[in-house]
């Protein structure tokens, strides 16, 4: 088994102290019938921890692949109380991707939803690894209502760094999502810095539409709200414009947390929003906000979006409490340091050092360390500059694709498409569709006739839905140089001719 016996860590201690304090006013709201105060959360988490203790091994690595709910938080806190290590994964992650994570991260127990998503429907049981690296016991119901699958590893699994108390994942700009190890101190520092910078108090009502596994929710909403005693509202439905508007009207939040696409959708509404009378902070991150969205919401609804900067590896880096059009990503958080890489020739590449940084990638040995400078700054891959002390993002270096805030790897998608028997060559890119939405595309050379529908079905079985190309085009050959590299200019010309749309990342 993967984990030795060990005591609950700093994060469990501090969360327990905060939640068990008589002064704690933390309340978790996850639906009309799902509301927990701090004492109830702690009691349920303790019961979950006792249940977890009865499962092998003693201090398990618990992979949580589930949608937002009150029971999600119960499972997370309960795992910490049981001295286990919660590993928080995007619920859209496919079974094939989960199999890699289980094997390469030494997962002992998987908690997931019985449904793969509101649209996708029931989720099949996890199976033994096709490569023989692990076997699974049949899924059993966990006290939280999740399906629990116990894993029995047949090969040696990677050890965690001493002090690791929680793991989160990158959204997959590497092949399989990289598993970032965090110490309890790192998680707590991120939360406390955020509480200070955002002036979060027990009076705040935080309405969060981001997944709790995601840094946007985890570092700005979940842990800070528990520590500060705020009310945290995490709706579980699909964030359509109508649903978000109804939640705003009902919740009357003081803090709103959402991805840019949600703000875009609200800006497209022909009606003013209601329920904003208490709103003092509207957070966005991960992808660029459209200037028109910022302008419309500010003018029509007096809603001013703080587009802060943060990375999965470093935690939040900046925040702007008084955003105005053109104020960028705001001021560095307490203890966050921003520097620039001059020696490597990237005049503007952001180097980030925070006390809330991860320790390493569990499943990519050396990968995290390779991105650190000698003095411990993380090479972000993003370009930016400081103006009057405020960070302004300029762009992103390298070839990563960003589909509505999710950084993904073209190579991973290419690999899956090339594994289809009919696909001989392919090139994966992103483009902006007629509505200005970023979508994923693939240009393919096939040996036999195959429909886009069949290829998407093939991808959906192996990849998360957001990694499945929306636009699939066929060609007789992909222009390549003598060295085999794709000739991007000729590909762009071809795509322009076929789609009348310019690719934004080739």
């Amino acid at each position, binding site marked *: 088994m993967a984990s030795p016996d060990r005591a609950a860590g700093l994060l469990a201690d501090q969360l327990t102290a905060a939640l068990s304090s008589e002064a704690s006013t933390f309340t978790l709201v996850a*639906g009309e019938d799902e509301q927990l105060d701090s004492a109830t959360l702690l009691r349920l988490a303790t019961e979950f921890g006792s249940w977890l203790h009865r499962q092998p091994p003693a201090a398990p690595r618990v992979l949580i692949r589930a949608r937002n709910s009150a029971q999600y938080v119960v499972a997370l806190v309960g795992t910490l109380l049981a001295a286990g290590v919660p590993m928080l994964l995007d619920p859209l992650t496919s079974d094939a991707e989960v199999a890699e994570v289980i094997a390469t991260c030494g997962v002992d127990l998987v908690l997931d939803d019985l*449904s793969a998503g*509101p*649209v*996708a*429907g029931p989720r099949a049981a996890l199976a033994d690894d096709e490569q023989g690296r692990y076997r699974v016991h049949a899924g059993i119901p966990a006290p939280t209502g999740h399906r629990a699958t116990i894993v029995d590893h047949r090969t040696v699994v990677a050890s965690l760094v001493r002090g690791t108390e929680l793991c989160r994942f990158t959204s997959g700009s590497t092949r399989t999502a990289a598993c970032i190890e965090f110490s309890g101190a790192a998680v707590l520092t991120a939360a406390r810095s955020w509480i200070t910078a955002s002036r979060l108090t027990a009076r705040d009502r935080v309405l969060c539409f981001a997944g709790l596994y995601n840094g946007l929710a985890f570092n700005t909403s979940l842990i800070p709200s528990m520590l500060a005693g705020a009310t945290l509202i995490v*709706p*579980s*439905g*699909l*964030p*359509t*414009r*109508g*649903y978000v508007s109804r939640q705003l009207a009902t919740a009357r939040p003081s803090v709103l947390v959402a991805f840019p*696409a949600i703000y875009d*959708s609200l800006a497209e509404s022909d009606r003013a929003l209601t329920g904003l009378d208490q709103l003092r902070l509207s957070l966005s991150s991960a992808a660029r906000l459209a200037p028109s969205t910022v302008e419309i919401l500010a003018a029509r609804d007096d809603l001013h979006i703080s587009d802060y900067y943060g990375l999965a590896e470093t935690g939040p880096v900046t925040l702007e409490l008084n955003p105005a059009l053109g104020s960028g990503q705001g001021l560095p958080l307490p203890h966050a340091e921003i520097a620039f890489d001059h020696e490597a020739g990237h005049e503007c590449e952001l180097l980030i050092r925070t006390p809330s940084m991860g320790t390493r990638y569990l499943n990519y040995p050396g990968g995290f360390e390779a991105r650190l400078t000698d003095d411990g700054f993380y090479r972000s891959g993003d370009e930016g500059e400081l103006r009057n002390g405020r960070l302004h993002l300029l762009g992103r270096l390298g070839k990563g694709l960003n589909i*509505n805030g999710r950084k993904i790897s073209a190579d991973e998608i290419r690999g899956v498409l090339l594994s289809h028997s009919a696909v001989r060559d392919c090139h994966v890119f992103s483009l902006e*569709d*007629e*509505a200005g*939405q970023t*979508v994923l595309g693939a240009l393919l050379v096939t040996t036999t006739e195959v429909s*886009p*529908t069949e290829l*998407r*079905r093939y991808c*959906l079985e192996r990849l998360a*839905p*957001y990694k*499945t*190309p*929306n*636009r*699939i085009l066929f060609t007789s050959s992909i222009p390549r140089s003598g060295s085999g590299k794709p000739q991007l200019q000729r590909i762009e010309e071809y795509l322009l001719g076929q789609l009348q749309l310019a690719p934004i990342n080739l």
Partner: protein
Amino acid sequence: MSSTLTQVIARMVTRASSGSISEEQAAAPNTNLTEQGLSSLDYLKLIDAIEIELGVYIDLEGDIGFLTSVEGIAEYVRLQRAS
């Protein structure tokens, strides 16, 4: 009557997908809209369109697997209108 509702919904799918899924593709029997390339953001637009244009409220915290096909959406709309 039912074919008209199907056509209306198929048109919404085409619009939500910015034209990448044709009305004929959307309305074809046994079509799975995710496999046709309808993205998660497209689904959000489609649900808003159903609520606003057809006046049918969708409980997004419940089972909404019916959204993957035009037939399923049409059946849901008919049931909601009848209740």
